[in-house]
């Protein structure tokens, strides 16, 4: 029973795939094809097949790298792997805005003005809570 041709699975880049294809043709089809010049029609076919092989190898490597947090590059993949590990990702907020906070400062009993004892507390964030607006006598 004839043996199957040996396929080298370590050839993953353009040059090595083309080299392997040329060797394969020389070994198994010497009486069918023997024009290995750069200008030949077969050279174009070897180039195109090697191109496809190189592209497939690239994407296999890329997909494997994207499976691990250490080597993943794409944002969504990193987020999904982190999610598997229990990281809760809330994403971006749908909207944002500024909030004004008002505080009612009680007037001092028996007097007309505000309770001045609270002024040091209110002055901590004077730009957020303008005292003159907030104070209701």
């Amino acid at each position, binding site marked *: 029973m004839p043996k199957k041709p040996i396929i080298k699975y370590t050839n993953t880049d353009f040059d090595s795939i083309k080299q392997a294809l040329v060797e394969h043709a020389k070994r198994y089809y010497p009486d*069918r*094809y*023997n024009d290995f010049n750069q*200008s030949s*029609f077969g050279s*174009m076919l070897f*180039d195109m097949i090697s191109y496809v092989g190189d592209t497939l190898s690239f994407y296999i490597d890329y997909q494997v790298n994207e499976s691990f947090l250490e080597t993943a590059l794409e944002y969504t993949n990193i987020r999904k792997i982190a999610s598997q590990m229990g990281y809760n990702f809330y994403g971006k907020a749908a909207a944002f805005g500024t909030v004004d906070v008002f505080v009612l400062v009680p007037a001092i009993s028996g007097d007309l003005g505000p309770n001045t004892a609270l002024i040091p507390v209110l002055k901590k964030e004077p730009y957020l809570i303008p005292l003159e607006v907030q104070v209701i006598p």
Partner: protein
Amino acid sequence: MIHTPQFPLSLGSKTLFSEADNTKQVVLFHLRNLILTNPGEKISDPDYGVGIRSYLFENITRGVLNNIAKDIDLAIKKYLGYIDVTNITVASPPDSNYVSVKVSFEIPSIDISDDLLLEVSNT
């Protein structure tokens, strides 16, 4: 004997695709490919090709025609070392939109000599 499919491909009687009839046909095919290929077009060798179409929009002068002939000669020496070029003639008639190339060659080892005639235009 060179075994290679004839281009354009057609179904053959003995083999799946009909083969080139003789060596001269294969050599002419090689030469035509080399002259008409633009550098960068061939994946495995970006330097391969003369890129004659890149000259089509040049102002055709004697110097440009000489450059084309020189490029063809250099490319043949580099990629088709098995043939000896005896003469290269490049011409472009006035007010015409094409360049005609004639490459005369011989292969002494198998006693072949022939001319390749090409007219390259932008159509």
